[in-house]
């Protein structure tokens, strides 16, 4: 069976028409994982028995001639920051090495409820903190397109699994670019929905006002199908939005002719790799040829996005990660005699270097005497960054940019320089701060064969337009 060309819809219809079985599909994906994942290391935990049991259930349904749910038999991978009942969830951290969650993340439960089959949990930067997947306590992921290079991060395992064909689709999480940046580096589609569009219940919290769950897929249509499945109000997450969920598949099939697309000059300046620029500009010309109006715009506060992000994200992280204290779950140091010693040693031994760096920065920014200067200042600048987009969206329907300034870099290249690593998110982080949706879609490759991603940003809750523009780009880049 050739699983490399399957999409969500073709998998479901082939199972419904009994050309293939869900069990056969799942077995083939595990065969591929066992053959190819040793080098790539996209997976941390597999759940073959559970997956095969779910597959048999789908096959029984198909045998009875029943209507199959929309994701019937679709093998998916879940970033290991989403809890899965009875299935180990580590967040890429040693502190959760043996953690078996007692409940399910809403997004995962909704996928499984629609017939999708979870193959396993994917590797990621520890607590989703990183841009290269090198911060995983379980070792890095390699980019399937060039194994000397990083897959991006923090959803590096999810992007690599989809790129390597060891999952048909995956869920990731995006706090500063962690879905779109690895999607760009690995040559797959990665969608970050509007803040609140998808419930965060069961997502191990990094920065609560910035965390988003979204899909990584082979096609834009698959991203639309998964979003349709996981989006919508969830009583278990009070920040999930009470906004109707449209049929994204229908919405994205509308022509792009007449759409006004903004090109922000700040995203095409110094630091942008030449080949990335040409590929993105080529895609913009194709969108113009398809009838879009291309409008030069400015998002003047863009240079302040990374410093704003590193104050707010680390401040929220320092509070969220206070729960890891060695009492209720997770790692406990064996070398402690008193309670406070136990907290301190468990956290020092359990957390990796980048996580400690961010907890320290966030604690500093929130500490007495510095709160106004750092945290409050950053929240004010966040308002300015959000206003940039509000003003732009008065003139345009969507914004088109490169996803990343360069293609995938080499393993180890930025590992010792936190600031250089943070700058890998320079084009993605602003959308997280403003809460607007964004997608990365492949738009070409370098001469050496590295994927290049184009980013489309939209208005709050307008994933439809984002998917529509991305769909037009991906149609063109395939011809």
């Amino acid at each position, binding site marked *: 069976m050739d699983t490399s060309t399957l999409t969500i819809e073709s998998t479901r219809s082939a199972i419904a028409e009994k050309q293939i079985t869900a069990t056969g599909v799942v077995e083939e994906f595990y065969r591929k994982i066992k053959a190819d994942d040793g080098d790539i290391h996209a997976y941390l935990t597999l759940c073959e028995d559970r997956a095969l049991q779910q597959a048999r259930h789908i096959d029984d349904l198909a045998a009875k001639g029943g209507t199959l749910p929309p994701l019937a038999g679709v093998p998916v991978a879940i970033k290991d920051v989403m809890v899965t009942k009875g299935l180990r969830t580590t967040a890429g951290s040693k502190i959760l090495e043996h953690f078996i969650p007692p409940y399910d993340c809403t997004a995962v439960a909704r996928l499984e409820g629609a017939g999708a089959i979870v193959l396993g949990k994917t590797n990621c930067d520890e607590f989703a903190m990183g841009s290269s997947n090198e911060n995983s306590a379980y070792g890095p992921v390699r980019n399937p397109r060039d194994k000397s290079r990083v897959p991006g991060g923090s959803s590096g395992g999810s992007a690599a699994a989809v790129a390597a064909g060891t999952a048909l689709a995956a869920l990731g999480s995006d706090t500063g670019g962690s879905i779109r940046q690895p999607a760009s580096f690995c040559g797959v589609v990665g969608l970050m929905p509007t803040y609140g569009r998808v419930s965060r219940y069961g997502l191990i919290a990094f920065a609560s006002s910035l965390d988003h769950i979204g899909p990584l897929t082979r096609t834009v249509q698959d991203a639309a199908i998964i979003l349709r499945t996981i989006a919508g109000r969830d*009583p278990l997450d009070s920040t999930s939005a*009470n906004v109707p969920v449209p049929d994204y598949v229908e919405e994205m099939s509308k022509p792009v002719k007449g759409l006004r697309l903004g090109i922000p000059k700040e995203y095409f300046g110094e630091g942008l790799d030449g080949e990335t620029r040409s590929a993105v500009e080529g895609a913009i010309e194709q969108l113009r040829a398809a009838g879009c109006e291309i409008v030069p715009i400015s998002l003047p506060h863009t240079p302040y996005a990374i410093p704003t992000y590193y104050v707010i994200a680390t401040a929220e992280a320092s509070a969220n990660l206070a729960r890891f204290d060695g009492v209720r779950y997770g790692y406990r140091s064996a070398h402690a005699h008193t309670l406070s010693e136990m907290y301190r040693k468990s956290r020092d031994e359990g957390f990796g*270097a980048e996580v400690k760096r961010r907890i320290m920065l966030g*604690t500093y920014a929130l500490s007495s005497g510095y709160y106004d200067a750092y945290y409050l200042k950053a929240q*004010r600048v966040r308002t300015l960054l959000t206003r940039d987009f509000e003003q732009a969206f008065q003139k345009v329907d969507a914004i088109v940019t490169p996803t990343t300034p360069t293609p995938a870099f080499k393993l180890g290249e930025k590992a010792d320089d936190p600031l250089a690593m943070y700058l890998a998110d320079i084009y993605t982080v602003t959308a997280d701060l403003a809460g607007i949706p964004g997608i990365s879609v492949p738009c070409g490759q370098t001469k050496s064969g590295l994927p290049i991603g184009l980013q489309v940003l939209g208005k709050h809750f307008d994933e439809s337009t984002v998917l529509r523009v991305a769909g037009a780009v991906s149609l063109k880049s395939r011809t």
Partner: protein
Amino acid sequence: MKVTEKEVSHVADLANLELTEQERTRLAKDLNSILEYIDRLNELDTSNVPPMAQVTGGASDNAMRADELRPSLAQEAALQNAPDASDGFFKVPKVIEK
């Protein structure tokens, strides 16, 4: 240097992190270089700009639910990941220090 090693120790205390000498030195260096970068925010006059509270405005209502009893995580399930538990309690080292 904005942050001294003494301040690093103070912040580590606030964050309940036991740092080695080596970690303290490295963190002082990293925090200084990151904070120097963050200081560019001071180029912006934000005196009349309100701090962001919720990016999507009213889309997420401040949902209040009815105050009704609902099933919650069973005690056994809540304790299953505990590093140490006994008699239905989480067990920890001595709380009162001399």
